[in-house]
């Protein structure tokens, strides 16, 4: 089940240059939270700090009861936070099945739940069962994104963090992936979603944060943000939001 992720007073930077300044953000158990903002607003830097790829210069990150600030990435995965990285970062020459197996790397070799989790991932993304012996690099972009999400699920995360999952994909594939994210959230998983496509993100999320120049500029329930004059103008192309 999902745990909560709490970020407080976080500062992250490269060398002396601060990229993320004084960010407070939280994801409650079973909640999907969208983090939106333009290119260079600091979204990816924030995620890197959450996943342990960058060390914050100040502030705290807590996962459930545990403080994970400054932990190395492999320990953070063990605490129950999985990242679907931007650009997917699949193991290209390895097969689909091997990619999923490596996703379960942090679990004991004889963990019998791994097989059932793989079956579960294959049920969510049937194409991963069809192509299970194919090298990951031979999959289409959409299939690769599905594999990246599936691989992250193999460590049984309590919090799933996705960096730009819709980037470069066809609308039909995006719909399929977000349908799975909705399912996971409905089952109680906590999800933090970073998206450039603000409209898409706010349509699926419960709450949202808008990041600008390394700071949180706005936050609130997703539907309120989607209708916010400022957000609409800056991130939704200025057109009035129509909700289906």
């Amino acid at each position, binding site marked *: 089940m999902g745990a909560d992720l709490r970020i407080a007073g976080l500062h992250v930077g490269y060398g002396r240059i601060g990229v993320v300044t004084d960010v407070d953000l939280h994801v409650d158990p079973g909640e999907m939270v969208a983090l939106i903002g333009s290119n260079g607003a600091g979204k990816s830097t924030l995620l890197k700090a959450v996943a342990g790829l960058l060390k914050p210069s100040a502030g705290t990150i807590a996962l459930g009861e545990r403080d994970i600030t400054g932990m190395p990435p492999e320990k953070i995965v063990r605490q129950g936070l999985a990242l679907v990285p931007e650009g997917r970062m699949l193991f290209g020459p390895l097969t689909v099945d091997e990619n999923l197996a490596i996703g379960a790397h942090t679990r004991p070799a004889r963990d019998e739940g791994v097989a059932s989790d793989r079956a579960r991932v294959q049920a969510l993304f049937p194409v991963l069962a069809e192509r299970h012996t194919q090298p990951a690099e031979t999959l289409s972009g959409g299939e690769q994104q599905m594999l990246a999400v599936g691989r*992250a699920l193999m460590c049984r995360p309590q919090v799933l963090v996705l960096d730009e999952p819709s980037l470069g994909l066809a609308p039909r594939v995006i719909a399929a992936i977000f349908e799975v994210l909705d399912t996971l959230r409905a089952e109680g998983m906590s999800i933090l979603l970073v998206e450039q496509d603000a409209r898409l993100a706010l349509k699926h999320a419960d709450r949202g944060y808008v990041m600008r120049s390394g700071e949180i500029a706005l936050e609130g329930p997703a539907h309120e943000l989607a209708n916010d004059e400022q957000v609409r103008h800056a991130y939704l192309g200025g057109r009035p939001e129509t909700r289906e």
Partner: protein
Amino acid sequence: MSSVKRIRLFITPYLGLIAAALAVAAVPLVTPDRYVLKVLVYVGVNVIVIAGLALLFGHAGQISMGHAAFVGIGAYTSAYLVKTLDAPWLVGVLAATVLAAAGGLVLALPALRLRGHYLAMATLGFSEIMYVVFREARAITGGNDGLGGIPYPEVAGLKIDTPVGVYLLVWGVALLTLLLVLNILRSRPGRAMRALQATENGALACGIDTVGLKIRTFALSAALAGLAGALYAHGVGFISPSTFGLDQSVIYMAIVVVGGAGSLAGPTLAAVVLTLLPYADALVPGLSKDTIAVMQDWEADIYGLAMIAVVIFAPAGIGGLLKRIRLRGAGEVRS
């Protein structure tokens, strides 16, 4: 891929290992020639070094320009302990292996915490430093004149002092080393190494301790080089610094590249063929002395040309060609 085909692909490397063991056992029956066996001892030593380097470079993607130095550390450690200090042979070999591994750790700990080519640079420097140490620490190494009269291997009171005995000992260890590396490759650490080589960030995202994996792999491959060095010292009986220089480290890397990154059979075959090349007279009777002299003079150039040819015509090396043949045998060809 059907499960039958997959099982075939799975057991093929073990069948190869068994075939290699049979070939190794057959050689002394075919030819008891001293010179041939001595050359083959040298080949076996290189197979051990290359097995470790194939793991490090071919699978974990880390470059070492200093493996000859680890071979040297192993050779001098065991030679000094056994010859000068009268230690039992097994103790000498064990100390050689441990000391080389420790040297590898000391080098890898700082270099591998940083990403990039720091390890290549560090090992390059290490190789040069150790070369100076081998030459100048005369009390232990005998300096440029070398260290001779190193005792034959002796296990549990049994002295292995015949050419056939030494040959079988070295190749026994070489086959066990190949088995060890093969098993590592087929288990979780091996899979993690392939993941690391494909994308380090992806490996991190899956919770793989990439720094720890690289450091452990480096230490293991340095240990195998040290073990090979000890076997070489006692098998040949004489060592000198020129055997453990930078050029030899480069040759080791060239063998792995020609053999093919990501393969074990390829680099092993390359180690056998390329080590034999300068000593072709041991295998091909009637080859003129001049031909051999030319081949030995041009050894480095032949390796260089082989490397260029591989990079241009078969980037996956001998291992890539073997895999294509195997997949074709299993009824599956991937372009």
